[in-house]
């Protein structure tokens, strides 16, 4: 049966999936309807808790306990299954562990998941996992199945597929594993591929590769693609149609151009706004002008940091030492905010931690000049001597859950630096903490509660309150917004900008997300494999990058504007030596 482009492959009608526990019933999916068409891509977009993942799992009827499909239908059209006889099937009515739904999974509808490392069995070869998928649904012997697996791996552009088929998942990088999972999903040529945030855990450049791969495979196989994501840029890049989900419901759906140009629902508008606002420099930041003649607060020269391999009688593996930072140099003026952008392994986090001497640099100088005082080389100080400097240089962490001691109240957490530096105690301490909490937008009555009572965004504010408690001069923000939903990012960044104004702070903003940097920073340094490859004004680096790596990075970032699709060609970066 040949389908033509646009034919309906799957219809979700009025689906509701509930999670029923002793205490409450959570309506994870609430009367959701979607349509998936042959050759077209539907992006289901929403923030965490919107129900998009549960919807995907409901389609395949693999919702984990205690969830179950309460009402609704999932109609699969034009299946090639013998027992269906060519008629549409309601997947939601099939028994979740029965034989019939199993003939659908992997064959008519396939699914790939977010974390490729955790989603493939660590003790089986890639080949055996793909062959299993083949032999479940097609009559082939071992040799034929293996040959098909090799061919599939080649089609997803994994190098040396005949060797890759006998390799284990841990031997591959994240991007390669995702390709292997895609190969496994497509090997039986399903009509619909559901992709649940497949690129969220990948670097921007790897993400671009995978998106391109998916588009190619779609034009090759013609399957319908349901792509779940929270990233509006990705949506703009690949979607034909968009469904926006919020708290279990589809609040808006339509063609991608219409959604981006004229969103109807307030939630969609807010979502788009919070993404688009980061496309430009914040007006708060624009308003600031650096005082002419501002002195240099931080001057880093030739900073190097080397992680030694484990020494001992026997080496555990053939790896040598890792040079995490290599001759890094930059300077920061007082009142300026400098962004450090890079992908995983670039060394940006290591840089932030070395500046604060949480990690020990192996070479170089870090000259720090306080408002009142002479420049001091922090790298040359003995470790115990850092304490007074940590009053002036503070850190905001990435993970709002792990950076607050779950066994201390807010008062104790925010008051910790005030106590340790002898700034205040007793009722004076409480007063100061209350003021700080108000400043970052928290209610002071809650100061005796514990962190687990607060949401992610609120916890990040607690972290900020802790950071400004001692009136510092420099704040290093290490991926401060990466763990937060998109709609919150602008809020937190605005808070940081306001505080910067008020307290005359200088910032080092570390992020893998260039829109954050573009929004907030005056200058940006691009890092790759431990080196700064380019540094300059944010505007010029983003609009007119010079270094080939920066060019490839900027070109790989999906823009949240569907009209720009395919206009800017993607540049691949080939460093000297193997890629």
């Amino acid at each position, binding site marked *: 049966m040949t389908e033509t482009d646009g034919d309906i492959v799957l219809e979700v009608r009025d689906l509701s999936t509930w999670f029923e526990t002793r205490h*409450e*019933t959570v309506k994870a999916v609430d009367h959701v309807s979607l349509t998936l068409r042959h050759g077209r891509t539907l992006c289901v977009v929403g923030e965490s808790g919107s*129900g998009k993942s549960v919807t995907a799992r409901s389609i395949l009827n693999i919702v984990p306990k205690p969830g179950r499909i309460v009402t609704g239908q999932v109609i699969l059209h034009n299946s090639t299954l013998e027992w269906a006889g060519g008629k549409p099937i309601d997947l939601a009515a099939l028994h979740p562990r029965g034989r019939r739904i199993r003939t659908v999974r992997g064959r008519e509808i396939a699914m790939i998941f977010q974390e490729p490392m955790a989603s493939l069995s660590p003790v089986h070869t890639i080949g055996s996992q793909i062959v299993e998928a083949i032999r479940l649904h097609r009559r082939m012997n071992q040799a034929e199945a293996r040959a098909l697996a090799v061919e599939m791996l080649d089609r997803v552009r994994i190098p040396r597929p005949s060797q890759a088929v006998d390799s284990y998942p841990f031997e591959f990088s994240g991007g390669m594993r995702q390709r292997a999972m895609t190969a496994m999903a497509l090997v039986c040529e399903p009509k619909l591929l559901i992709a649940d945030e497949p690129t969220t855990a990948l670097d921007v450049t790897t993400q671009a590769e995978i998106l391109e791969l998916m588009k190619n495979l779609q034009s090759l196989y013609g399957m319908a693609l349901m792509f779940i994501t929270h990233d509006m840029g990705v949506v703009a890049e690949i979607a034909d149609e968009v469904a926006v989900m919020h708290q279990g419901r589809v609040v808006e759906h339509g063609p991608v151009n219409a959604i981006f140009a004229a969103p109807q629902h307030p939630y969609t508008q807010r979502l788009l706004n919070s993404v688009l606002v980061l496309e430009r420099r914040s007006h708060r930041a624009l308003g600031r002008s650096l005082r002419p003649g501002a002195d240099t607060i931080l001057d880093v020269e030739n900073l190097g940091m080397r992680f030694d391999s484990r020494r001992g009688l026997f080496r555990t593996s053939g790896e040598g030492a890792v040079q995490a930072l290599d001759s890094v140099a930059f300077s920061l003026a007082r009142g300026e905010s400098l962004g450090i952008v890079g992908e995983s392994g670039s060394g940006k986090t290591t840089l932030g931690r070395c500046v604060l001497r949480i990690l020990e640099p192996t070479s170089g100088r870090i000259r720090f000049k306080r408002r009142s005082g002479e420049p001091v080389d922090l790298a040359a100080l003995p470790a115990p001597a850092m304490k007074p400097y*940590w009053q002036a240089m503070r850190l905001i962490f990435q993970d709002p859950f*792990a*950076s607050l001691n779950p*066994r201390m109240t807010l008062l104790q957490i925010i008051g910790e630096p005030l106590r340790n530096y002898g700034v205040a105690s007793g009722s004076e301490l409480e007063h100061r903490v209350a003021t700080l909490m108000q400043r970052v937008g928290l209610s002071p009555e809650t100061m005796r*509660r514990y962190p687990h009572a607060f*949401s992610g965004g609120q916890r990040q504010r607690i972290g900020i309150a802790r950071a400004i408690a001692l009136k510092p001069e420099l704040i290093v923000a290490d991926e401060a917004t990466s763990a937060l*939903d998109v709609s919150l990012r602008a809020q937190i960044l605005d808070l940081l900008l306001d505080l910067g104004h008020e307290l005359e702070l200088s910032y080092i903003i570390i992020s893998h997300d260039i829109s954050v940097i573009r929004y907030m920073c005056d200058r940006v340094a691009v890092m790759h494999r431990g080196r700064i490859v380019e540094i300059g004004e944010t505007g010029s680096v983003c609009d007119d990058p010079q270094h080939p790596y920066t060019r490839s990075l900027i070109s790989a970032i999906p823009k949240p504007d569907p009209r720009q699709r395919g206009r800017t060609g993607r540049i691949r970066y080939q460093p000297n030596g193997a890629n």
Partner: protein
Amino acid sequence: MTARSPAATGDPLPPDTVPLGPAGSSSQLRLMWVQFKRHRMAMVSAIVLIMIYLTAAFCEFLAPFSPIAFNPRYTYAPPQQLHLFDRDAAGQLVFMPHVNGYKVTIDPVALRRTFIVDDKVKHPVGLFVASEPYQMWGLITLRRKLIGPLVKGDPMYLLGADRLGRDMLSRILYGTRISMTIGLIGVTLSLVLGIVLGGLSGYYGGWIDHIIQRTIEFVLSLPTTPLWLGLAAAMPTNWPPLRIYLCITIILSLIGWTSLARVVRGRFLSLRTEDFVTAARLDGAGESRIIFRHMAPSFISHIIAEVSLAIPGMILAETALSFLGLGLQPPMVSWGVLLQEAQNIRAIATAPWLFAPGVAVVIAVLALNFVGDGLRDAADPYRQ
């Protein structure tokens, strides 16, 4: 049941929202208690444990007889049932606790005594009966026991008698004190060793960690009983019982510290890299403040769980040693010493109540294991 939509981790509402969850103001202790309560077996076992330790504390008062009081007339006498009510002359039911006496026949051929419980003979039993003066905890002189025969010299063997006519119940009650406390003392020593070595190992890392880890692995890989036996056998048999007791405890703890050290080290290692520990350091906290104020609360609950799981090992070990005659010696009474009587298969065949101390061991260890399991589940109340 309330139906609601899933809460997002983002908050699209204005910043000063009400915190989520009813447990917002609960401290760690409270959350742990809530979690522990859910484990029903652990709750039941906790009550059982409290009763056992109360028994250990007040054994002199609770036991009807002294553990060394013997009576050759009643060797291997079977257990007597305690009846609470009796019919008086008028046929009415009155509260008159009593036990039935024995009819003794002597088998002329085997020269063995056989006891049959004779319900015509009644020995009245009372609460708070007068008794020989005895010392409670070696300090207070008391003259009353909780329960005992009203007429001095009457037999009351609620759990039977042993080879010398000694009351099993009294002996088991006295044995509770030794068996349960040897576990505690041994575990305390193990704990100190384990915390110090595990802490050093996890905190400093590097070659200190390497050496301590290899030592732990090595000690764990050795079969414990042969080593205990070897160490115990090396003790001179003419030492006073208390010194032997202390030596045994030390021997037990020398081998038991390793699992505690591993737990402490593991927690230290995982905590060391936690962001909030780094944050504390950047907040200017000194090393000792970091360890005791910031890290310790995170692993104290795990330590407590491990400790309560380590005590049964000590109890079982002491029981085994004493059973073999290489641990505590009579006249010290522990459950293991009592079980020495059960080594003789012929004896058990005719007097199966000699197993009773073993039942006590099983109950105590079961209770400790359940409580430890419950504590381990409750140790990390933030684990979703």
